[in-house]
């Protein structure tokens, strides 16, 4: 009997070794360690997609569901939320441009990231970590961890580096296909068996009482899950609500940190985009809104500009407005990451 007790005690005493080789997170962090959480699935437990199959067969989409669209001036690709909800990151390439669509379902933020870091092309994966409920991607080249909403590397070899972002447009599939009828769409044939079309987070999108993890700071000026378009200029943030726009395209001219910008939105079409008011050559056209498919603006030179800022008609055809650094997201996330955010009124 004594032997048995000794053996049990010895066995328990030698078993207490915690281990974690699932997250490369050693070293300094630029964000508070106490505000980082393990989301549950683990590193790569939510599998990022690599160059997924695109299709023109779009029966699996309904008009009201959200997509993140990318257009490079020639080709358009739609990345449905119903795919991104399950994978969060899609590493892709279009006409030689390596990029990733990086999407966090908990903060509702979808951003386009250039996959070239310090001259090296990489891919991004899901670290399984969250900061203030927001996705922390890692780059597979160096294993460094990045903050999606800050758009910078917060831990690892590339700490302090900023990622180069590019414009994507988040809107409904109905609006997107009306603007880009030839757009390809990431198909449900991803190589993974998932319940695409079934939202994995229940009432999370609309339930303002539901947050997964604590926030370091919360701004209650708007309901948590209000989707807003945030514009970042030199760390100054201003957010625009759908209620500021009408049922047809509406133009708002504003100024953030000394920069004149234009914001075009349409509450019915679930669309808000923003650009610097000045063209790259310094010209500042006088814009007005139009509702001609993807063309949403025209100017006094009779140029027509689309949602990605490309001049699609007129003497400046081929030129492009300069998009702001901006993306859609839930208000609570903007308020937490950028506590001095200004709400447009």
């Amino acid at each position: 009997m004594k032997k048995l007790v000794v053996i049990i005690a010895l066995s328990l005493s030698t078993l207490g070794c915690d281990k974690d080789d699932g997250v490369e997170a050693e070293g300094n962090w630029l964000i508070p360690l106490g505000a980082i959480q393990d989301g549950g699935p683990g590193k790569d437990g939510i599998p990022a997609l690599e160059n997924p199959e695109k299709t023109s067969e779009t029966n699996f989409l309904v008009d009201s569901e959200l997509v993140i669209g990318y257009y490079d001036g020639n080709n358009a690709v739609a990345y449905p939320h119903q795919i991104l909800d399950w994978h969060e990151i899609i590493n892709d390439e279009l006409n030689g441009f390596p990029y990733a669509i990086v999407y966090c379902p908990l903060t509702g933020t979808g951003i386009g990231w250039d996959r070239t870091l310090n001259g090296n092309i990489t891919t991004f994966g899901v670290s399984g970590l969250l900061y203030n409920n927001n996705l922390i991607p890692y780059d597979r080249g160096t294993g460094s961890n990045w903050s999606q909403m800050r758009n910078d590397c917060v831990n690892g070899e590339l700490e302090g580096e900023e990622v180069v972002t590019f414009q994507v447009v988040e809107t409904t599939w109905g609006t997107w296909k009306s603007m880009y009828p030839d757009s390809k769409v990431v198909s449900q044939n991803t190589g993974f068996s998932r319940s695409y079309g079934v939202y994995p987070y229940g009432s999370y999108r609309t339930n303002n009482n539901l947050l997964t993890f604590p926030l370091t700071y919360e701004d209650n000026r708007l309901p948590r899950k209000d989707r807003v378009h945030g514009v970042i200029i030199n760390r100054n943030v201003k957010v625009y609500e759908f209620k500021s726009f009408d049922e047809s395209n509406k133009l708002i001219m504003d100024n953030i940190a000394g920069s004149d910008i234009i914001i075009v939105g349409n509450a019915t079409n679930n669309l808000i985009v923003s650009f610097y008011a000045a063209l790259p050559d310094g010209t500042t056209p006088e814009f007005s809104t139009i509702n001609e498919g993807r063309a949403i603006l025209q100017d006094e030179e009779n140029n027509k500009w689309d949602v990605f800022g490309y001049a699609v008609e007129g003497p400046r055809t081929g030129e492009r407005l300069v998009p702001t650094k901006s993306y859609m997201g839930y208000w609570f996330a903007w308020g937490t990451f950028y506590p001095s955010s200004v709400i447009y009124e």
Partner: protein
Amino acid sequence: MRRIVFFCVLFIITNYSNGQTCCSGGVPLSGNIGLPVSEVGSWQMLLTYDINTLRTLKSGEKTLNDRLRERKTHSVLLETGYTFTSKWSADLFLSYIRQERHIFTFSGKQSTITNGVGDAVVLLKYKVTNEGSPLTWVIGAGPKIPLGKTDKTNNNGISLSADLQPGSGSWDGLLWSSFDYSLPSRKSMTLSVVSTWKVNGKNNDYLGSIVYKFGNEYQLVIGAADRIVINRMIIDPSLSLQYRRAGRDLNNDQEINATGGKWLFFRPALSLPIRSALSINFSASLPVYSFVNNTQLTPTNRFTAGIFFKINKPQSL
């Protein structure tokens, strides 16, 4: 006899230590609880090693073709019971838990493992039926005491998720009932119905500011056991069906979508009596049917091995 005990314990230790190739969720308290009715003044002890593996990804009833993630919970469970009177007895249930999460990616396997003392249960039991009846009905109730840690972090100090913690952080209440019926035509054969209802309390300090509550749980086990002799060796085999139903977890009173469900398991078990007061037990738990809310990793299999012994009250001369 000592050798047998030694090798059984060694078997437990070896599996536990090599458990890195092996996961699950939750401390298997209510699935194992409840020692048999015994003589007045006797002590009973059951030491069990339990390994619960979850690598089946399901959406509702549908099994998804995915082997990306695996969760294992290894538990060393020590249950001791004392019978006070012919009616009253009490069990104390202690646990030591090892939670493992493994991800299998193109770059290899990545693991996160935590260890620690798990939660405990005290169960006060009352025997409703009287001696001599072919039917034995015992009811019990007690608290689950949150001895286990819920603030385990990884090597870098980052908080791990609730399901990787060895404890739940909440005081829970258990109601337990066990019917055993010995067939008059075959005394060695027993039919049993055991039900456990666990009403979970709240962890008011999860991640500093979240009130987290695991979903309430109900289990019903219906089984039959018999004694057979093969080559002069006594064997007590049993077969049972276990139904388990768990509600959704709550985060600050808001339901978490991908938690909770219904499961039906087939449980073959074998008990080998070494002496009248000592036996070793083995059991498996294999899912027959399951329905999970939304998409979840769900149990793939579960195995236990245990040693049971009893110390009877010394007889006065």
